[in-house]
């Protein structure tokens, strides 16, 4: 029986062997999955926004700590890729062996932006660009659409299950 680790929004987890990483309720968020098949080390992140922006600070609440460290590293799609690679390398994986998979980026509400302004699409694009620029092959992708997803990543064989509920 393998262990199942749940990932919440804005989190990233790296694990190895006999483990399943799972995250549910994925809408416009993007799930980045990186895997080293040889060492069976891999990670998954659940990012909300495409990238960190200058001036993305609150104007109303000033807390010094807030400004120094606004949000976790997995909150932004591009930073989460870097974080996953770093952690995988720390756990014995090699960057050259990594393969990537992308899930998510659905458009739940049209009024929040259609087409290019849609946040789901921007999330996927941002993650994809970072992965490609690092020379990691994208082996599989299930992105876009209008339906939310549940993602399960089996580290034993690198298989990713994507489920929907409606």
């Amino acid at each position: 029986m393998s262990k199942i680790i749940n990932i919440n929004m804005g989190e990233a987890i790296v694990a190895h062997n006999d483990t399943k990483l799972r995250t549910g309720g994925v809408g416009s968020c993007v799930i980045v999955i990186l895997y080293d098949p040889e060492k069976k080390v891999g990670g998954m992140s659940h990012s909300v926004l495409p990238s960190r922006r200058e001036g993305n600070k609150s104007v109303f609440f000033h807390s010094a700590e807030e400004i120094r460290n606004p949000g976790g590293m997995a909150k932004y799609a591009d930073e989460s890729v870097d974080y996953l690679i770093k952690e995988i390398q720390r756990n014995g994986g090699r960057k050259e062996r990594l393969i990537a998979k992308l899930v998510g980026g659905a458009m739940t509400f049209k009024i929040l932006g259609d087409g290019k302004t849609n946040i789901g699409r921007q999330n996927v694009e941002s993650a994809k660009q970072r992965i490609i620029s690092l020379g990691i092959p994208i082996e599989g992708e299930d992105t876009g659409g209008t339906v939310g997803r549940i993602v399960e990543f089996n580290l034993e064989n690198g298989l990713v299950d994507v489920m929907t509920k409606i």
Partner: protein
Amino acid sequence: MVIKKKKNKKQEKYLTDFEKDQLIEVVNIGAGNASTALSQMVNKTVIIRVPELFVDKIEKVPKFLGKQEEIMTGVLLKILGDAPGMMFLMFPTDSAGQLARLLTGRKKETHILDTLSRSALQEAGNILAGTSMNALSRFLDMNIIQSVPETATDMLGSVINSVLAEIGKSSDIVLILKVDFRVEGEKISGKLFFIFDPRSTSKILETAKKKISK
């Protein structure tokens, strides 16, 4: 390797108790008006709770809202004008179906919402938002406009994702006021969320302060 920060009691830091009470009062006025409208629409008593306030980082919101993978029906409206934000109406699927039946006067039992039910729910959202926004703009002397409503039936997490991302574009912290309501004698319950970004919050607080000190 979970990215988690130490548990902190920042919630208190963002707003003072007085400011919290003010915001709750302001939203209570809106929610009270909305519930009256709903009550007139379905011709039943509608009971609402005192608004619950949540201020924290965006990634902490899903836990506040409920189970991530539960299927629900949501109606979303954008609030535009002087205090931009969003209004989100959330029903468990059964409640949504029941409410749609009450509104359309049909007896058919359907779990999947068809076009007519969806449109009925959107209209309900429109009226609820309209009345509460009206009350708010009158109380605060602000120009508040609402967008066309849109419904979605999906997992709670995935529906709320995009709403949060929209707020997250401009701010790390979000302010949400939650109002629970139910229709007496019917199995209809739901939640009404007022989501504001910090800019709007400070505006609302300023105006509320002026109003009260007058």
